[in-house]
């Protein structure tokens, strides 16, 4: 009990600090300031796009992970979870070396089409996807492993083909795991800073997401940094609470 209380306190004190130090008289001006709106809009767009990409690529990856066994599975699993333990800045450097103008893949893109990924909104989405997708993969893989194989077997016995089984039986059963994974993934993407600043840089309206804007503001206008942080906090909290009720089946 005491430890649980301490744990909760440890989470809540920094939030309390933000709330107590917030310049409430300036909060309204901060919320309506065009820079804030730009950063918030970009943050929401990038984090939702990153979650969408993670859903498209992450669910198949989780399927493959859940169907492999032994050493191969351990290796694949370690590789997918690597971005979770990697410092995000290192992830950003790795993305630069892969997708930059002189990177492994990026150089081909640049030479063939003249496309440069870094410094674009696409780069911010990629950075967020890189860091956040593992959360979705892990959640979905856990859901798949907890799945009772008899439902799929029954569907197959009744004559359903592979795709049909997946779409009509597996996916609906996986819904809670997919939603909780997607929410975690989205939350991680929304807070992403290190990989974004390294790979995508910082430019208002293009790559300056709220966490980056907070960092910039912290050093010149600490008050607006606190206001921005509070806004991000409120938006995240509202969406997390809303999602729980609607899709995760809150008890």
């Amino acid at each position, binding site marked *: 009990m005491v430890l649980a209380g301490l744990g909760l306190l440890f989470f809540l004190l920094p939030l309390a600090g933000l709330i107590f130090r917030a310049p409430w008289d300036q909060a309204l001006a901060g919320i309506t300031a065009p820079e804030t709106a730009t950063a918030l809009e970009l943050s929401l767009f990038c984090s939702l796009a990153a979650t969408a990409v993670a859903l498209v690529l992450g669910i198949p990856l989780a399927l493959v992970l859940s169907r492999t066994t032994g050493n191969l599975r351990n290796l694949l699993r370690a590789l997918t979870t690597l971005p979770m333990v990697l410092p995000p800045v290192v992830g950003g450097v790795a993305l630069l070396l892969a997708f*930059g103008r002189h990177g492994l893949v990026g150089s081909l893109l640049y030479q063939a089409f003249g496309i440069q990924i870094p*410094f674009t909104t696409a780069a911010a989405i990629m950075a967020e996807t890189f860091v956040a997708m593992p959360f979705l993969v892990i959640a979905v893989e856990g859901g798949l492993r907890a799945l009772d194989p008899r439902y799929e077997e029954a569907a197959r016995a009744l004559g359903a083909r592979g795709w049909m089984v997946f779409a009509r039986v597996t996916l609906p059963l996986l819904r809670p795991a997919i939603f909780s994974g997607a929410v975690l993934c989205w939350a991680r993407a929304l807070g992403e800073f290190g990989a974004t*600043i390294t790979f995508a*840089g910082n430019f208002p309206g293009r790559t300056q997401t709220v966490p980056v804007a907070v960092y910039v503001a912290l050093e*010149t206008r*600490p008050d607006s940094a606190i206001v921005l942080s509070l806004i991000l906090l409120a938006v995240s909290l509202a969406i997390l609470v809303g999602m729980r009720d609607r899709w995760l089946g809150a008890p």
Partner: protein
Amino acid sequence: MTKAVVAMLAVVVVAGCGGSTWTGYEPLYPPLTIFAASSLQPAFDKIGQKAISQHIATPSFNYAGTQTLTAQLLQGGPGDVFASADAAHMTSVDSADLLAGPSRIFAHNKLEIAVGNGNPKGIQTLADLSRAGLVVVLADPSVPAGKYGQQALSKAHVTVKPASLELQVTGVLNKVALGEADAGIVYVSDIVTSGKVDGVAIPDDQNIVADYPIAVLKSTQNQAAANAFINFVLSGEGQGILKASGFLGV
């Protein structure tokens, strides 16, 4: 068991006393924490080694953008010496009453255009940075280098559309070194010590001279050693190291 616990407690109590009341012992080379602007790193790493080998002090360095260091100090970050990349941030630390004494200018720096090795885009002047299709990266105006860069560009009457406003000069340097950016504005000292980029000089009438002030912090535990370190930075030897790293001496 109880004996062991008592013994451990005793050790903890004795050790706890050691720090505050045991005045008979003074370390030979007092430890110093130096808050230094990231552009100073190559020079200060060498100065630090000299300070250790000459038994002046044992400095450890907290390198970051000057604006980050200032924010840390204003939030109560403990340090002995603050070396800033501009006068404005030193002033804001001073007005928060965090300095033990007046600051002194110990070095100057100028700006240069950083370009890829061999200058593949043939950049000659600041005006070239406004060329279409060129990827230019600058430091954010909240960073001293970014503020100076803006001043230089407006002196040259050039408007640049930067691809990114990096939060540290090293961010600009790295993006040019990795080839992601074609050009950026950094300090001469960055180019001298980087070795991975080439520099294109900016004429004096468009350039700025950055002053680097240094001061002892009020939170110091070791005023004498902190002063000795600053004197070493200002000495002929310290200035020599700074000049070899591309700074201008005082």
